[in-house]
Every structure is written in C-alpha cells, then in structure tokens.
C-alpha cells in the first residue's frame, strides 16, 4: 500500500453510466491484477474503492493506471465530472489480487458489469505468461458493453453476453459457459477460473462449473486496508477481510 497523489490524464464515458479514467502516479506497490485503489473525493468522508483495470508501468515506479467505474452514487458521480489535471489522493495496491500462477495453460476469465475491468488486467498478465484465455463478459444490454475490443486485442477469445439479448449471446455468463462446455474440447479446456462480478453471478458460476478458480468479491468498505473490520466475511479458512485478505478468494474457501 502507498498513499500517493495521482494526476488525471483522461476521463471519458465508454458505456451507459460507465467511465474510463486514466491517471499518472506511483504504481510501485502493485503486485497483482485484481488489486484496487481507494480514492479520496473532496466533500465525501470515506474513500471510494475502485478496482484497477490496467497498469502501464513506466520508469522509477511511475506509471499510468486505468480505472473503469460506473456512476452508482455520489462518489462516482463526482468522479465522472473530474477533468484532466485534477490531483487525487489514492491508496494504491490494496487487496491480494489474482494469482495468475495458479493457471497452468488455459484460463476461463469471467467478468460481469463493473466486474469486467479487473479481468482486463488478469487477462493481460495471463497472456504475457503465455497462457490461453477465454474471456466471458456479461452485461445487461448493448448500451452497457465495453472493452470487448480491448480484450480481443490482448489475444483473448472474447465472448459477450447480454441479459436482454441486445448484443452477443442472450443470457448470463453461465449460459455462454454452458455452450462452451457442450462444445467441449479446446472450447472448454480450462484449468482455472478468474471471476469478478455481482455476487449472484459469482454464485451461479461457482455452481455451474467444477473448475477451480479465484473469485473477487465486493463489500461496502470502511478503510480499504484492513483496519476497520467493516468488510469481514466468513470463509472455510477463517474470517477474512475482503479489503485486505481479499477481495479475491479461492473457490475452495468460499462459503455462500
């Protein structure tokens, strides 16, 4: 963790209520995709946790962060109005992140809605490590879809689902996965799942596949760095803090 200032390079809308913000600052403490930052927002008391989509590291530990967030409340509303050059205080490199080493050859990467952004960083790392990636990205409708092209550019086989069927496969991510499973062979040769999304999606995925995996959870947080016990959850390995011991839990430990 580092408490440090970032400068906004760009902040633009990329889907319905969804924004992509790029910021420059120190990225030296990040160790894994799936970690998050906690952002201080003028006029609001608690920082806002946002998962990291991508890190472009530069010299001396500096780099550019990409954050993708949906406007869901006062904090993200204020963020959406921020302009280039604005300085923000961030706590960086929070949480454990995904362990890409657990995947040997072929990864099933699943993202739902605002759970998609961290899966971009995971996909990038997996592909850098020479692994095959199939990315299943679920959204509500065509207007909500983002980053399909970016996943493809990384070299991932990318499948998009929408709940209303207005784009890609109609249904949930699990419907797309079922199709792959039916197809079998190379379409379903995964040795590890990486997932982030709303809890109902994670639970459906958990029940839909036998593949081991890592699931990233959301909880309302106080501090974001393990001090307040605001985001505790029970796991088979004991009580954990989503912000510090998570947000990523391995499938084996999850208690629904």
């Amino acid at each position, binding site marked *: *963790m580092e*408490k440090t200032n970032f400068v906004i390079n760009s902040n633009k809308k990329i889907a319905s209520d969804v924004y992509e913000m790029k910021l420059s600052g120190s990225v030296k403490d990040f160790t894994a995709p799936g970690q998050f930052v906690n952002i*201080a927002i003028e006029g*609001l*008391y*608690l*920082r806002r946790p946002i998962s990291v989509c991508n890190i472009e590291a530069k010299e001396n530990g500096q780099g550019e962060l990409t954050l993708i967030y949906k406007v869901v409340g*006062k904090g993200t509303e204020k963020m959406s109005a921020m302009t280039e050059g604005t300085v923000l205080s961030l*706590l960086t490199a929070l949480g454990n992140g995904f362990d890409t080493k657990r995947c040997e050859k072929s990864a099933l990467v699943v993202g739902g809605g605002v759970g998609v952004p961290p899966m971009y960083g995971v996909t990038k790392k997996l592909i850098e490590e020479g692994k095959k990636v199939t990315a299943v990205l679920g959204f509500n409708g065509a207007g909500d879809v983002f980053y399909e092209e970016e996943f493809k550019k990384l070299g991932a086989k990318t499948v998009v689902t929408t709940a209303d069927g207005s784009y890609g496969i109609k249904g949930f991510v699990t419907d797309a996965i079922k199709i792959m499973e039916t197809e079998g062979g190379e379409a379903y040769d995964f040795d590890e799942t990486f997932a982030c999304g709303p809890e109902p999606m994670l639970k459906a995925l958990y029940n839909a596949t036998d593949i081991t995996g890592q699931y990233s959870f959301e*909880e*309302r*947080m*106080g*501090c974001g*760095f*393990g*001090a*307040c*016990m*605001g*985001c*505790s*959850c*029970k796991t088979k390995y004991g*009580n954990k803090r989503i912000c*510090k011991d998570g947000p990523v839990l391995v499938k084996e430990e999850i208690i629904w």
Partner: protein
Amino acid sequence: MVSLKTKLGDWELDNPIIPASGTFGFGYEFAELYDINMLGTFSFKGTTKEARFGNDTPRIAECTAGMINSVGLQNPGVEAVMEKELPKLAKVFNKKVIANISGFSEEEYVYCAEKIGKSDMVGIVEVNISCPNVHNGGMSFGTSAESAEKITAAVKKVTDKTVYVKLSPNVTNIVEIAKGCEAGGADGLSLINTMMGMRINLKTKKPVIANKMGGFSGPAIFPVAVRMVYQVYEAVKLPIIGMGGVSSAEDVIEMMLAGASAVQVGAENLVNPYACKDIIEALPGAMEKYGINNLYDIIGGAH
C-alpha cells in the same frame, strides 16, 4: 522548542496521540506503514471473552463528515489476543498499550480484565461500557451511573492495572455516568464512544447497514465530544482521554483545552492511514501558531 509530552496519571506519554480502539487493529499492520513507536500509545481492538465474528455485513455507511460502523466487536477472543496478537505487536512496538475490553455481563468484563491485566504490555485497561453495536451488550452498562459504577468496581477488584472507562455519548447526562465510574474507582475516563446513527439506502429503501443502526463517528461529532469532555472535566477529578472526530492538530489542542490529558484519533485513521503520524508532525507548528509551548499546560485551559 515546544513540548508534546503529556501524562495519564503517572504514565508519561511522548505525545497525546493515541489511535482509538477499532481503527488500528492490534497495531502491527500499521507498523508496515510507519514506526508506530512515534505514537503516545494506542488502544487495541475491542476484545471480549469469546471470539466473535461480529455483525452481518454491510457494516459501514457513509455520512456527511463521518461514517457509521456496525462491526459488532469482531475479535479473536482474549486468549488469542494474548497468545497471537500481542506477541506480533511486541516485535514492532516498545511502549505499553491500552487494552480495550468489552463484555456482555459483569462476569465477562471481569474475566477479560483479569486475563489481559496479566500482560506486561498493557499500560491501561480501557473498559468499554459503550459499544452501540451489540444487542444486550456493553451499551446498557454505560447508560446508568449505577451499572457503570458496578462494572468499574468489579474490574478494579481483579486487576492492578490502571483502569479507564470508555463512556457513551448516547446519554442524557454523561456527568452522572462519569461520577459513577469515579465512585467505582476508575483511574481515568475515555470519551466519547460513537453516537448511535442510521442511514437509509434510497435505492433499496432499507437501512444501509445490516444491523440497521450503528456507531456514528468522524469530524461531524467533534462538537458533541468537546462539549462532553468539557462537562466531565468540571465534574470529576480523573484524567480524561478525549476523542470523537479528532482529525487535525488543531482538534487535539481544542480537545485538550476542553479537558483531555490525551486524545484518541479514530475514524480519521480509516480515511488516512497516516493520520496519527501526520497529526503528531503537525502539532509543533499548530502549537507555535497559538502560542503554546507545552501541551501539558493547556489541559482544561478553556475552563
């Protein structure tokens, strides 16, 4: 050069800054961020007889200039604290610490105090009779002078440690409760704990936190804390650890003028993990600005 030193009874502190219970864990995780030996001391996570997971989540709600928490005394239990947490702390902290304890019956308070009182690392046992987040829990002991006196006396009987009682602001007359603690033999008082608050989610139209209500803290409650420290200082002879929304060196000075001998910093640690360090480093400048050479001299100066 200005002096930040202060005293809680016989215990001389390098400075008055004490992270409050529940916002600093058992300290060692903050030691990864800075040398926590710079602190006056700190008050560790509220500890009970048995291990507790605490309340359901969500446990946190945002407020204007503050937050509500409803953690519900999650802790590994007093034995585990002594066997696992304090040894980890001992590696990074060379001062005595404040042991914050809670209970659901007099017997549990006594059990915890007796156990934790045996640790050489403990300088003060801080008896929390004011946790708002547990049903039938600590809070009820903190809302009448009689029960406050009784718990205080029972704890005093089983430990030789200095005993501070942590008071609730959710009372009609905090002075009466403070006097009860004094009558029970308390060596000092910590105030204020959080205020009972609630937020409602306009989307779900239900309370934000699972337990409905929780403890409201942050800069928003500072004026209530200053008032209560001021009132209690006039009414009892005990040293006071003041707290409630302290977030700057100026707040520390204000709290000490009201009557606090030392000051706990709570919610601010959660939005700035370096809050206590920042405040300690800002104090000399703030003291010079307001013509203060010696912090210890200003305690109760507003009276």
